């Protein structure tokens, strides 16, 4: 029953995606003059790469030869104090058009952000509207969340049905990974008495990052290929979870090590306490930067290798470029697993520092 519910949700999601795509393909007549614009521009690899890595309000699929672009236009959800909530398709904002007093900035310091504009068309840079849009990254993230739910609800159903016996189907694929997280990450670091409390978090974070990183490597059909785990907001939130869990499970011993480090003379404490406090922040901060930079760097390298073809403007470069891209993809696959492991491992380590008993 539950699986059917999840499948239903998934189908509804696909339906929304494809309706939006169908809508996006109707080209408004007002844009005739904007076509042909991009044709004469020289190829600029760094903007090309950054466009592919960054989040955006529309999911660009391809640009036709006449400069017209095919993309899935995603919903824009805005909230501003004076106008309230506005929900509309990002097709209305495409190519610098204004809609309901909003505009999507295409250049300048606010590039890619939606700004409120007045009648004269001047952007109000002080009061940006709150942007809760379902952007490319959000679609990718929701998709992998649904995929994760689907996988694990199926898994728990099959355990309910057969109990602990020889694994079957999806069980035999996921069970070793779950056991790996328990036996190699949680148990040795947190210890046998306390690890159970933190298993749900560690498993969720492990599979969420893993699914997102793997889906981010599949380049084409739209719910895939969003740069989710290479998005700093995403990694920031995950690092925040680790930070909060660490602080809230910190015992007396943990706080004593911060505010009255044993074995340190009292006149050193004015130096030690700030250092320890910075340490609390910098650990999850490093966690955030590490995942973000690893995944983004991988994508940048792959995209620059693809760019070689367009820089040299010859088909002869293509085979070499493709071989290098495949090689890089293999490394990225390894990095995706490694970074997932590392994020979970370090989360477990930080938690273990907080719950460690005095000895």
């Amino acid at each position, binding site marked *: 029953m539950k699986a059917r519910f999840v499948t239903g949700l998934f189908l509804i999601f696909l339906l929304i995606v494809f309706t939006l795509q169908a809508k996006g393909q109707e080209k408004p007549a007002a844009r005739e003059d904007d076509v042909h614009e991009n044709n004469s521009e020289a190829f600029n690899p760094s903007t090309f790469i950054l466009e592919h890595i960054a989040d955006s309000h529309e999911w660009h699929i391809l640009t036709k030869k006449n400069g017209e672009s095919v993309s899935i236009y995603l919903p824009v959800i805005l909230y501003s104090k004076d106008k309230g909530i506005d929900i509309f398709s990002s097709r209305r904002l495409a190519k610098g058009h204004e809609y309901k007093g909003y505009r999507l900035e295409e250049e300048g310091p606010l590039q890619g952000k939606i700004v409120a504009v007045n009648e004269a068309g001047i952007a109000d840079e002080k009061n940006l509207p709150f942007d809760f849009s379902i952007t490319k990254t959000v679609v990718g993230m929701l998709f992998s969340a649904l995929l994760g739910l689907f996988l694990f609800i199926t898994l728990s159903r099959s355990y309910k049905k057969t109990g602990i016996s020889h694994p079957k189907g999806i069980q035999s694929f996921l069970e070793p990974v779950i056991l790996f997280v328990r036996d190699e990450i949680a148990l040795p670091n947190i210890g046998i008495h306390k690890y159970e409390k933190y298993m749900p978090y560690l498993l969720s974070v492990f599979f969420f990052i893993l699914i997102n990183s793997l889906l981010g490597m599949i380049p084409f059909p739209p719910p895939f290929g969003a740069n989710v785990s290479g998005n700093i907001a995403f990694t920031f939130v995950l690092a925040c979870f680790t930070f909060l869990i660490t602080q809230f499970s910190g015992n007396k011993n943990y706080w004593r090590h911060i505010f009255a480090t044993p074995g340190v003379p009292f006149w050193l404490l004015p130096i030690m306490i700030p250092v320890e406090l910075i340490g609390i922040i910098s650990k999850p901060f*490093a966690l955030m930067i590490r995942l973000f930079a*690893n995944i983004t*760097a991988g994508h940048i390298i792959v995209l620059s290798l693809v760019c070689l073809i367009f820089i040299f403007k010859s088909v002869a470069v293509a085979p070499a470029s493709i071989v290098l891209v495949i090689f890089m993809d293999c490394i990225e696959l390894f990095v995706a697993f490694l970074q997932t492991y590392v994020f979970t491992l370090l989360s477990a380590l930080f938690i273990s520092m907080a719950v460690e008993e005095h000895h």
Partner: protein
Amino acid sequence: MTGTMAAIGAGLAVIGAGLGIGRIGGSAMDAIARQPEATSKIQTAMIIASVLIEGVALFAVVVSLITN
């Protein structure tokens, strides 16, 4: 000009990280050769240490990306 400086910075960070991770890898090899039965423990410790170094190197990469 800032672009060139950023590139030099990224290169310097790579030198540092390369030296650090190289040493960790070499020492781990020595340790595994001496005690092959402790391979899995040594590998975990090696990955943790190299990840910490890599984190610092990535700070440098991010800084050079931003200033570029």
